[in-house]
């Protein structure tokens, strides 16, 4: 147990008491430069990405307070002038904060790559399965009818993937795959982030981060002739690639555009994003008052057939998690707020949700606020016009006397909550104060029922009844060791969970698969579990890296064991015997293996990676061939 021993060894490594006393004495002298006093929110803004990336750890004690989230208002009637003033004001405060720069932590805001790429699930992927011939699986999309971009797609016959800046088109050819085209993109220093396929169109999402230019672009190809694909459009927008969805024949490309601090009032190009060569018009811009960072979320709708940009919306105020239904797009950003009350200051994480209506025209509809922060896109779900969101709330309270914070009063906790918001994002129902001192590890909504897993030592799977949106009720709470990081409904009355097993004391031992019986939501039980002989899988972090298909009885993912061997695991499930292995196939000595995707087309199962296509029989999971790209 390397990790345990390394931790144990480190526990012996401590500075001497005398050294500690010496340094502490030095620290008790006043610092040479007094700290500049300034707006707390701006500080949080700057470090916000970090809050989300690393989570917030508090010492667990029972809290004795409750504060309402601050309401951030949406301003939809803005001019370039108001945008300029807002951003300029932000940077003034920010510069003070940025005295940090010389200490080597300047990346918090300056580097576009750093700031946003951290909320659990920004990257995305998927396929609508416009089947060319026969039947085929699609990307593991969250919402039916909303395709998520991914690095591998299929159209029921051809497989589209990416390698070293090439688009590779492989004919699945009934289990005998053949590469029909390697199309070099010739897009120097742009990275392919995902693909969409729709009939005779292939859309390729590219992203470029550089000091001079940060852009997201969408290339559209006519793929009628697979051997000779023709580029018909190249649409580019400012900002780094954040997310993309395809609903029907429309691709929604999302980028996050951070405004620099050298803006020029007379030149809107310096503080307004540009889409397809044009600066976004004033009437397409909204602004969230008291925003947390001067980042726009830029959303363009692009018709995949014509390659034309239908509409664009830009909202100033930062974006982290994105959830998209067939009609609306929701995104969140979180910040920490403080509230003073009777000699105590309470800090609490809060999240603002922004709702955009999709269609020919993209409209900013509303903003809403809840306590806590969501885990990822699965934390949100739209149902009957309402949005449901599960959050983890971090709080801490400190005592204040004569205007100065004097001590930590011991009131700190994490709690979890579920909110139901109406179509204007006004809260109509809530369950708060759940699973104290734990945090959310996975969420899944299934119509009027919601499931979520929190974890500290054991894994309570909560089942929530959402039939009456104003009165969500906890139906059951199942406690088992370990936790699930991904939940997926598995046929009638069953819920599949992929996660980590743990001892009763809460230390993680490896990967596991679980099947829950949810047929009686008031009495959910774990029917079967099986530990997977591996420690790490991309599927823990990205739902597109796992295939869960109840109809074909396939649970497929790639995982790496402690000897750094990476294997493909395919499990099946039977009511009588639980999980059984359909195949376990060695694929690589590569540790932290990323990018394997799974699909079935007619009677064959394919694993597609950057390196090639491995073909299996869909019935027996016998390995048939391996085609190297």
């Amino acid at each position, binding site marked *: 147990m390397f990790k345990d021993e390394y931790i144990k060894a*480190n526990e012996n490594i401590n500075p001497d008491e005398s050294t500690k006393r010496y*340094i502490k004495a030095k620290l008790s002298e006043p610092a040479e430069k007094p700290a500049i006093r300034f707006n707390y929110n701006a*500080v949080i803004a700057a*470090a916000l990405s970090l809050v989300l990336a690393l989570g917030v750890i508090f010492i667990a004690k029972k809290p004795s307070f409750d504060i309402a989230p601050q309401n951030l208002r949406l301003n939809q009637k803005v001019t370039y002038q108001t945008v300029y003033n807002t951003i300029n004001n932000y940077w003034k405060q920010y510069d003070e904060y940025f005295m940090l720069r010389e*200490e080597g932590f300047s990346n918090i805001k300056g580097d576009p790559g750093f700031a946003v790429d951290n909320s659990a699930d920004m990257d995305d992927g998927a396929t609508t399965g416009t089947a060319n011939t026969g039947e085929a699986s699609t990307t593991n999309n969250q919402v039916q009818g909303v395709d998520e971009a991914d690095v591998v797609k299929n159209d029921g016959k051809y497989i589209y993937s990416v390698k070293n800046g090439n688009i590779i088109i492989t004919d699945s050819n009934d289990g005998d795959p053949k590469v029909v085209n390697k199309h070099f993109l010739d897009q120097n220093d742009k990275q392919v982030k995902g693909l969409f396929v729709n009939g005779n169109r292939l859309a390729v999402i590219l992203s470029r981060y550089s000091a001079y230019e940060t852009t997201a672009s969408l290339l559209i190809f006519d793929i009628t002739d697979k051997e000779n694909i023709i580029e018909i459009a190249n649409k580019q927008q400012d900002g780094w690639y954040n997310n993309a969805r395809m609903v029907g024949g429309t691709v929604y490309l999302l980028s996050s555009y951070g405004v620099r601090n050298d803006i020029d009032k007379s030149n809107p190009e310096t503080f307004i994003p540009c889409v397809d060569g044009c600066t976004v018009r004033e009437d397409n811009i909204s602004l969230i008052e008291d925003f947390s960072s001067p980042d726009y979320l830029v959303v363009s709708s692009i018709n995949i057939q014509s390659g034309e940009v239908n509409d664009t919306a830009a909202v100033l105020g930062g974006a982290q998690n994105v959830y998209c239904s067939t009609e609306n797009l929701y995104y969140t950003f979180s910040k920490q707020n403080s509230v003073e009350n009777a000699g105590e200051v309470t800090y609490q994480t809060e999240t603002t949700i922004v709702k955009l209506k999709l269609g020919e025209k993209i409209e900013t509809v509303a903003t809403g606020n809840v306590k806590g922060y969501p885990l990822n896109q699965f934390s949100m779900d739209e149902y009957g016009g309402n949005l449901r969101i599960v959050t983890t709330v971090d709080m801490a309270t400190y005592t204040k006397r004569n205007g100065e914070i004097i001590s930590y009063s011991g009131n700190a906790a994490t709690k979890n909550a579920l909110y139901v918001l109406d179509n204007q994002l006004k809260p109509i129902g809530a369950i708060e104060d759940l699973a104290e001192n734990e945090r959310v590890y996975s969420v899944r909504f299934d119509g009027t029922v919601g499931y979520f897993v929190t974890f500290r030592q054991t894994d309570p799977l909560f089942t929530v009844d959402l039939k009456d949106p104003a009165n969500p009720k906890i139906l059951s709470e199942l406690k088992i060791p370990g936790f699930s990081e991904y939940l997926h409904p598995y046929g009638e009355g069953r819920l599949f969970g992929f996660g980590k097993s743990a001892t009763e004391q809460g230390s993680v031992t490896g990967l596991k698969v679980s099947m829950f019986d949810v047929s009686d939501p008031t009495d959910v039980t774990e029917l079967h579990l099986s530990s997977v002989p591996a420690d790490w899988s991309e599927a823990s972090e990205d739902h597109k890296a796992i295939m869960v298909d109840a109809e074909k009885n396939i649970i497929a993912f790639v995982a790496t064991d402690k000897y750094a061997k990476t294997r493909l695991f395919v499990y099946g499930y039977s009511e009588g015997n639980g999980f059984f292995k359909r195949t376990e196939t060695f694929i690589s000595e590569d*540790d932290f293996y990323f990018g394997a995707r799974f699909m079935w087309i007619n009677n064959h199962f394919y694993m597609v990676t950057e390196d090639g296509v491995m073909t299996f029989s869909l019935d027996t999971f016998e390995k048939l061939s391996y085609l190297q790209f």
Partner: protein
Amino acid sequence: MHNKFPNALTIEDVFDRYCNTVYRLAYARVGNKYDAEDVLQTVFLKLHKANANFSDTEHLKAWLLRVTINCSKNLLTSGFFKFTEPLSDAITAPEHEVSDVYLAVAKLPLKYRTAVHLHYFEGYSVKEIAQITKSNEATVKTRLKRARQQLELALKGDEIYV
């Protein structure tokens, strides 16, 4: 005076809470007690003087780790270190009682042992380590992978868990 630390911590609280964190990373990097103590002092004096505001303890901790890396880097690239023996030898006679596992880590190249320390001891993910060390994720992944391979060789028979 306005408090720059989250959760109303004072500089002394911050020191009490994070001195081991900083010291252990510094020790993993510089490999001896005296330099690690030097880094510890420099880091906290910088913190004391910094015109900084921290939104929460994780921001603060990440800042401290980042500055620890910088300070020990300055030390390691300074003239003194250039003319001394390689670290791996320096640490084989450690001032702290450590196990074979720790010594095996100490023999790894600097970049690897930084990644190993942040991953296995501090529990940061690849993504987070990339942010703290200002490298890209692929680089961190490769470092961890190579570190694991070398550790496996060095600790024949011992199992390395992620």
